[in-house]
């Protein structure tokens, strides 16, 4: 091999550049030739000229030889580098195996740090980085209506506005309307009625998104009033077994026949969410409705920016359109502006902040891991310094030593990454169950090649980060001094002691920041869950019943069926109360325009408030207390004056001086013609459990507002609510066997699902915080242990001279406490940064919450105290007879 020859690697260090070397060699040749000619009697100048002439193309030879030498050197260096790497790796594995416990702990610690990052990155990637299932999705924009006065900025538009947008906007090459949400439809399958989510989309929807049918064709403008549908890939597989001849088949949906014209590609989800059946929206039909055309807001808008048009330009055009429409339709279109958002931002919604917070937390954990391992590696370097000193003494270069140690730490990091990826896959499996309802519909949690590569890269950087300081410390070792020192009691150098202190301080600072962040999230979730909801969701089963208008054409007929079902349910054993409502309280419930007689509401434009029509027993079943007046009863016949019950917040906001009861208002379709009268005030209900403050709310009697085709039923029981599902289905079948029971679940689970989006970041961040606390405690332990060990001899002397154990403990504590203090101060600064980061997720707690900070500091100090007890106690028990002998 190259380095087995005499004058091996070391002599190469003294070689010159290939060019200079060749030039020297040839210059020598020429000189000799000149000497020869001079010796033969030529005069020096002539000799020189002759020599040059004889040589010929000096420049060419020089170039050619230098080139060859250069290539040879390069090949040699590559061989050397690979040789070294092989050697380093072999040595690294051997030295890792020599300290199995250390290696195992290091790999485990790293696996936790890297695994946490990989798992969170998997989520971040799938939500924020993966491409949307549309063509050139970066040019797609979602347009929302914004009602300043009602605090609604992600709102829907009316059919009239949607048509105006499609007709007037020039910034978009395509604008399409679609039903804002999805709705459940009943599909008559071979094995009985099945409920499938359906979506309603305008003609330009698929062409605007740039989506082509996997089978058949997509819906177009021409389909507006045609009974045709498209199927999602999932519905096609599930309901039709992937039948390749499905196009042209007829389905019965809600009693009506529809022809399948196409199947959507796999992975496609709409901006409104996932749906199985896609219907054509008959916009012209809604435009003909004199009231609904401009007064009912239920359409979402998606547009594709025309070539060369920026989002800002589109927004400006939308601003002008809002002004124009307000002038043209002052009654319906005032007080409303439009907001254009990139479609991805619209779909990511409010998961972005929690995800970024989690990514930052995971990164903090990894940093703590680095600091922790750097400290551990430093101790190990100190205990191996004899080995290094010997290697330096017999000729190992310092650079080589540093490189060797970096290889060792990178090796540990990669092993940690391998285990960490395994943990991440497991973690994502668990997250998929917990997080999917709160993530955008297109998110598919997985670790693809990119995520794995990113993880490995992060691991390598980690390895270098935590290996660098100890490696440099080893590189600075003085072999002579080290080898001459006594075997025992050689005390740690000042520099490495400081380094260790800085590392511990960093761990404490980072842990404190994380703990404060987690604490703030815990506090705000506490604020959300501890504030009264205003109703009692425990022990209540909910389910929806939709009566198809084909079989039940009149509202009266439907009302009678709903009443009959209610009676049957009330007769079931174990049932304590039954109520039916137009929709259960939820953050997505629809809002209606509010008008109060004789009162001009502040500001410009309409006010929307959550509204529901309820049966007489609703307030009793949901346990909402009556404050004043009455709730609904049999006296509220369709012919009687519409009775309205309002919430306390509504009464206070619109009748601050009292007098709500008896006031005349309009808030629903059945009060469009004649005024309704407020008959009672009930307790507030928080329709969004994630918002601690309740919204104003209005109720009407289901006896008077009964035009709806569907109702949510609430059944209260003493036992398990889900045990009632079967009896409920039987009761429904007794009324009409062709009507399915939709979405039976407990009211508590609806509330819970809404909180899941808040709970998940809190849980994960708390887990990260605990992990950080654990790592920092280990770091504190290691620091005190190393300090105590290093000064063992000194303590022996002190004890021999009469020092008390207390004084010794004081010495150790003082030395370590400085760094802990530095860490706490740094942590307080870090907490400010973290608090700002999470402030968007907080409710009912200030970002700079002294209680949270205090608890975090105390928790950290408590753990640190436990961690330092053992080494400090050991220091106080130094036996001078042992250490000084």
């Amino acid at each position, binding site marked *: 091999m190259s380095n087995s*020859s005499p*004058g091996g690697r070391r002599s190469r260090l003294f070689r010159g550049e290939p060019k200079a*070397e*060749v030039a*020297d*060699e*040839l210059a*020598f*040749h020429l*000189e*000799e*030739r000149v*000497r*020869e000619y001079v010796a033969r009697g030529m005069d020096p100048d002539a000799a020189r000229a002759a020599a040059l002439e*004889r*040589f*010929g*193309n000096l420049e*060419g*030879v020089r170039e*050619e*030889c230098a080139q*060859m*030498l250069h290539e*040879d050197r390069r090949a040699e260096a590559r061989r050397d580098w690979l040789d070294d790497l092989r050697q380093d790796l072999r040595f690294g594995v051997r030295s890792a195996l020599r300290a199995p416990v250390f290696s195992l702990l290091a790999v485990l610690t790293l696996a936790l740090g890297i695994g946490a990052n990989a798992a969170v990155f998997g989520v971040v990637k799938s939500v924020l980085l993966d491409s949307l299932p549309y063509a050139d999705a970066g040019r797609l924009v979602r347009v929302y209506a914004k009602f300043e006065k009602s605090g609604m900025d992600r709102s829907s538009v009316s059919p009239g506005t949607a048509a105006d947008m499609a007709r007037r906007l020039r910034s978009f090459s395509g604008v399409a309307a679609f039903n804002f949400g999805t709705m459940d439809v009943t599909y008559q399958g071979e094995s009985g009625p099945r409920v499938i989510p359906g979506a309603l989309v305008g003609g330009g929807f698929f062409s605007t998104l740039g989506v082509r049918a996997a089978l058949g064709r997509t819906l177009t403008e021409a389909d507006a009033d045609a009974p045709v549908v498209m199927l999602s890939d999932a519905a096609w597989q599930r309901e039709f077994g992937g039948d390749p001849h499905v196009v042209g088949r007829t389905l019965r949906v809600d009693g009506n026949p529809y022809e399948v014209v196409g199947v959507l590609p796999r992975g496609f989800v709409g901006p409104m969410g996932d749906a199985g059946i896609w219907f054509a929206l008959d916009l012209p039909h809604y435009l003909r409705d004199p009231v609904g055309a401009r007064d009912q807001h239920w359409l979402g808008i998606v547009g594709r920016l025309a070539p060369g048009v920026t989002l800002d330009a589109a927004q400006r055009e939308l601003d002008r359109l809002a002004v124009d429409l307000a002038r043209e339709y002052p009654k319906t279109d005032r007080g409303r502006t439009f907001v254009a958002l990139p479609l991805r931002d619209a779909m990511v919604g409010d998961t972005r902040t929690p995800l970024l917070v989690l990514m930052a937390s995971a990164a903090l954990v990894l940093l703590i891991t680095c600091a922790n391992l750097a400290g551990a590696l430093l101790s190990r370097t100190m205990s191996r310094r004899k080995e290094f000193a010997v290697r330096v003494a017999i000729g190992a270069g310092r650079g080589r030593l540093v490189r060797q140690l970096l290889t060792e730490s990178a090796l540990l990091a990669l092993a940690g990454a391998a285990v960490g990826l395994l943990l991440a896959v497991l973690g994502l499996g668990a997250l998929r169950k917990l997080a999917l309802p709160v993530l955008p519909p297109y998110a598919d949690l997985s670790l693809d090649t990119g995520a794995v590569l990113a993880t490995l890269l992060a691991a390598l950087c980690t390895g270098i980060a935590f290996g660098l300081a100890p490696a440099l410390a080893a590189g600075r070792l003085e072999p002579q001094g080290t080898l001459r020192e006594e075997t025992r009691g050689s005390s740690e150098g000042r520099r490495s002691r400081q380094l260790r202190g800085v590392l511990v301080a960093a761990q404490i600072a980072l842990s404190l920041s994380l703990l404060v962040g987690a604490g703030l999230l815990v506090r705000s979730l506490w604020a959300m869950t501890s504030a009264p909801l205003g109703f009692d969701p425990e022990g209540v089963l909910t389910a929806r019943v939709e009566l198809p208008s084909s079989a039940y054409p009149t509202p009266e007929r439907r009302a009678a069926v709903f009443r009959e079902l209610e009676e049957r349910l009330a007769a079931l054993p174990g049932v304590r109360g039954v109520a039916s409502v137009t929709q259960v309280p939820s953050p997505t419930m629809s809002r209606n325009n509010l008008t109060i007689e004789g009162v001009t509401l502040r500001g410009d434009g309409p006010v929307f408030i959550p509204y529901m029509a309820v049966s007489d027993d609703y307030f009793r079943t949901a346990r909402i207390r009556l404050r004043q007046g009455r709730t609904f009863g049999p006296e509220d016949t369709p012919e009687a004056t519409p009775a309205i019950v309002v919430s306390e917040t509504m009464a206070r906001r619109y009748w601050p001086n009292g007098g709500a009861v008896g006031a005349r208002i309009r808030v629903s379709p059945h009060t469009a013609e004649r005024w309704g009268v407020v008959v009672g005030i009930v307790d507030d209900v928080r329709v969004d459990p994630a918002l601690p403050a309740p919204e104003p709310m209005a109720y009407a009697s289901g006896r008077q507002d009964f035009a709806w085709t569907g109702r949510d039923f609430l059944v209260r029981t003493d036992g398990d609510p889900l045990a009632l599902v079967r009896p409920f289905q039987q009761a429904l079948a007794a009324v009409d066997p062709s009507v399915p029971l939709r979405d039976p679940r407990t009211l508590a689970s609806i509330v819970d699902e809404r909180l899941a989006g808040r709970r998940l970041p809190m849980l994960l961040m708390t887990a990260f915080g605990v992990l950080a606390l654990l790592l920092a405690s280990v770091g504190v332990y290691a620091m005190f242990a190393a300090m105590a060990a290093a000064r063992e001899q000194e303590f022996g002397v002190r004890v021999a001279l009469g020092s008390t154990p207390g004084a010794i403990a004081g010495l150790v504590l003082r030395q370590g406490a400085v760094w802990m203090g530095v860490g706490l101060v740094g942590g307080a600064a870090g907490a400010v940064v973290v608090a700002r980061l999470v402030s968007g997720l907080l409710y009912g707690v200030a970002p700079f919450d002294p209680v949270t900070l205090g608890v975090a500091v105390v928790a950290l100090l408590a753990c640190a105290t436990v961690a330092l007890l053992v080494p400090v106690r050991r220091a106080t028990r130094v036996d001078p007879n042992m250490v000084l002998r």
Partner: protein
Amino acid sequence: MFAKDSGLLQGTLELLVLKTLSWGPMHGYGIASWIESATGDVLRVEEGSLYPALYRMARKGWIRGEWGVSENNRRAKFYHLTAEGRRQFGEQSTGWQRLAAAVTEAIGSTQAPAWAR
């Protein structure tokens, strides 16, 4: 002589370099001088061929160059044979001798071929 691109002659130059170095380490100028004097100035070594040949042989691992001091106290690059170079020299010189003997015998032949009779 020893034009750069002639395969036969290039091989010959390499063989002569190997022979030269078999006496001991020598620099490029010394190698050229020795070959010229050893062949009775019949062969003139072109520098333009010699130095690339040296570097090529170094790459093949037959010879190795190291800086040393010349007879007249100048820094010069001395080449010496490696073990592989020594082996090559043995092989190539035997081969050359057989070739030369065969060619010599052929051109010195006095027996006319059948077709010339």
